[in-house]
């Protein structure tokens, strides 16, 4: 196994990472729930967004790291960037991109988006962000994600890191806490779960100072 920066050949696996991590251990895919689009359409939109090469937000190839097995296949991955480097939050950048590619759906999804926004926790400027962490099911329990997180943290200049995750994703929360992250903020709205927009109704912001 080897850890490396992602390349264009990893894009299909990266899309898997985004889709599975957005499910956050549950079955609901929030973009389908909010915008009423299928996985296939979302996959194409994600690929279109990657084509734009917009940095400082998770959907940029340059921010991705993967674990490759001896056959050259990616088995784990994550996106990592420093929040707010260009003066605009990653959430704002993502919203602008989604709005651009989903103009019609955005207008008809405003109420659902407002509910989702109710549990948004602003990311901390200057913090290393770890997002879309995912290990293929066949390769779990072998320490790949732990190695990947440590590698990525060491590759950045900043000593402070942040992960956001649904509280209901117990396995992920346990791993992050084991690695020294602790809960800094928690935002809940039961309407998120009642409307089947996410697999849980509480979002956690976990932070770590690894200096």
């Amino acid at each position, binding site marked *: 196994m080897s850890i490396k920066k992602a390349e264009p050949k990893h894009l299909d696996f990266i899309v898997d990472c985004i889709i599975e991590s957005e499910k956050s251990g549950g079955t609901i895919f929030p973009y389908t729930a909010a915008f009423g689009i299928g996985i296939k359409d979302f996959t194409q939109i994600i690929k279109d967004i990657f084509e734009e090469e*917009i940095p400082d937000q998770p959907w940029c190839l340059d921010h991705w790291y993967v674990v490759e097995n001896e056959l050259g296949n990616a088995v784990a991955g994550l996106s990592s960037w420093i929040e707010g480097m260009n003066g*605009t*939050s990653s959430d704002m950048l993502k*919203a*602008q*991109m989604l709005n*651009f590619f989903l103009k019609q759906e955005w207008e008809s999804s*405003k109420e659902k988006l*407002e509910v989702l*926004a109710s549990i948004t926790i602003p990311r901390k400027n200057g913090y290393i962000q770890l997002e879309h962490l995912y290990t293929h099911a066949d390769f779990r329990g072998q320490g790949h994600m732990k190695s990947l997180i440590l590698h990525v943290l060491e590759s950045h200049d900043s000593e402070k890191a942040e992960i956001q995750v649904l509280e209901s994703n117990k396995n992920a929360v346990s791993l992050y806490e084991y690695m020294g992250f602790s809960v800094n903020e928690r935002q809940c709205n039961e309407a998120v779960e009642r409307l089947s927009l996410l697999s849980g109704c509480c979002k956690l912001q976990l932070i770590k100072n690894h200096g």
Partner: protein
Amino acid sequence: MDRDQITQELQPIFAKIFRNPEIQITDDLNAEQVSGWDSLTHLSMIADVESHYGVKFKLKELIGMKNVGDMIDLILTKKGAA
């Protein structure tokens, strides 16, 4: 159309979107300085501005906007007044 005219025209748009009748429009105004300026209200504001001026911003232009001054520059360029 000039910079001052656009600044004046943006005031009621911003006042409505950010629910602040007293909001003062300046070139360096940005999301960090305005209560309620989040990703959703930002996109509503952009939609209203595009509609008001009959312009469409490209994705790279949207991403590159750091403050109101940048947006006014783009409007002037698109309206051929820069």
